[in-house]
């Protein structure tokens, strides 16, 4: 049984078809890449999986269960965590609180127990606190624990976001352009980090990425989207030379032939 199974997913923004008949099967432990030019519908797919947008057509199954109509908080507490293309931390809150909020659904006490400060409340708070502390240490964030998230440098904010996603012990992690805005050496570090957390937390990962280097280094399987349509899928080595991909996709990296990349530059008319 695949961990995540998407069939016939279609989504429109007004008259614009953002995602068209998208299907995907992800097995436990896989690392799948989702690539394509800007506006191809990649983030929309993440938003549909995580319940930000309502699914109008198609079905999403997670661990064999139909989660298509679940509200987003239920999806994330059910084990699907995600990060965002443009970092979305709780900016005024401390780094510690940001991470603890990732485990919101795992706090085993109710409102009255919180008001009465019962023993159970204290045990649970301490347990979550320790989990958060160990994750902060894992991501080299301990010195920032009490600082407001907005004060952190960009790379650290990305790591806070990852810690926040991981504290809930997800089985499936959706990473939306984790290498965005990173230079090559930072991207290298990120590749290492993703490989490590995938092992340490026994994760299944779906990755949206623009940098071919990251995709080739990480993913076992890649799906290529353009204008909401799936135009190719396969192992990253094959995908790189797929004619349809070269036609649609601008490879900024040496991984794609420079000439073909230039030819395939998307026109200015494309919108998200």
């Amino acid at each position, binding site marked *: 049984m695949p961990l995540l199974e998407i069939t016939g997913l279609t989504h429109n923004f007004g008259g614009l078809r953002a995602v068209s008949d998208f299907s995907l099967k992800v097995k436990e432990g896989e690392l799948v890449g989702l690539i394509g030019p800007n506006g191809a519908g990649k983030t929309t797919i993440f938003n549909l999986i*995580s*319940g*930000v947008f309502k699914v109008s057509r198609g079905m999403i199954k997670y661990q064999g269960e139909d989660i298509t109509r679940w*509200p*987003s*908080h239920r999806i*994330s*507490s059910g084990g699907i*965590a*995600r990060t*965002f293309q443009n970092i*979305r*931390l*709780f*900016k*005024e*809150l401390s780094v510690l*609180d940001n991470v*603890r*909020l*990732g*485990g*919101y*659904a*795992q*706090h085993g*006490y109710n*409102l009255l127990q*919180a*008001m009465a*400060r019962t*023993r159970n*409340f*204290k*045990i649970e*708070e*301490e347990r*979550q*606190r320790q989990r958060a502390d160990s994750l902060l240490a894992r991501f080299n964030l301990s010195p920032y624990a009490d600082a407001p998230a907005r004060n952190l440098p960009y790379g650290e904010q990305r790591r806070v976001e990852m810690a*926040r*996603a991981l504290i*809930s012990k997800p089985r499936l992690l959706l990473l939306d352009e984790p290498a965005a805005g990173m230079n090559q050496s930072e991207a290298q570090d990120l590749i290492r980090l993703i490989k490590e957390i995938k092992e340490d937390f026994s994760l299944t990962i779906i990755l949206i990425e623009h940098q071919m280097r990251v995709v080739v280094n990480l993913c076992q399987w890649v799906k290529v989207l353009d204008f909401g349509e799936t135009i190719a899928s396969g192992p990253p080595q094959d995908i790189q030379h797929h004619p349809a991909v070269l036609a649609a996709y601008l490879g900024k990296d040496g991984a794609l032939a420079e000439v073909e990349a230039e030819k395939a530059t998307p026109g200015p008319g494309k919108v998200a």
Partner: protein
Amino acid sequence: MATLNKPKTSLISLASVLLLVLALVLPASGVLNPYVVQILMYVGINMILTLSLNLVNGYMGEFSVGHAGFMGIGAYAASILTVWVLPRAWTPWAFPLVLVVGGLAAAVAGLIVAFPSFRTRGDYLAIVTLAFNMIVKSVLENLEVVGGPRGFLGMPRLTNLFWVTAWVLITVLILRRLVYSNFGRGITAIREDEVAANLTGVDTRRLKLYAFLISAFFAGVAGGLFAHLLQFINPRSFSIIKSTDMLVMVYLGGVGSLAGSLLGATIFTVLMEVLRPLGLWRWVVGPLLLVLLMIFRPKGIMGFKEWKWLREEKVASSQ
């Protein structure tokens, strides 16, 4: 940490008890003149109102401009109890219960505002709360049984400095425990980024419900205290003007801060007393202050900051 915090907690409890004793003794002893006691009671009632509104506006980041509606419902519900339902002789003893009932009545009304907040937020929710305030006022004006626009009277003067102090302490205690829990963190996450909150597993609907219920409850309690201090209420006491006062106190003291609420209520109440000689012009001060605050210091004096003794303590269950 556990050993460090113990003395702090007991110090706070000791200070609270001392405050309660003072609130009981001082007015009776005649050290404070009745006018000062009266002002102190207004300060306390305003503290409760400000703390209550700050939960929704400061911590949750919504913009409720109709909080006087909750206060009014609490005031009328509590007054009906003491005037019509309970035998007069019981009322002094039943007063805390009366206030709780007033608070609960307001909390039910809180539900009415909480549900629209699931679907809309920001400016649009502000308009919903504004409409709510107007509806409450109009309903009260048209209910002849409770005196319509002439108002409702006959309440015994049950509010004293002791009860006001006790309720301020209760409000601070409850809200502090809420704020420094998973639920409080979730409520602030709604303010920071509602979509991201949902995507980290925060049940934002449930939290909005909690926030509006608790907030409305304390506004209702404050209404009950207010009614049994003045011994006369009319619908105009709970108009938009009252809501504006509460907004000024929240944004003056500081959003998302318990300390700020206490500070804002104190400064504003005392200021309005000092400015009494200005007569009608006094009513320009509040709105003007609000405009200036929004331009120059939108987070207020203590925005998102807290006095040390009000901050989160590290919980230790095992040590």
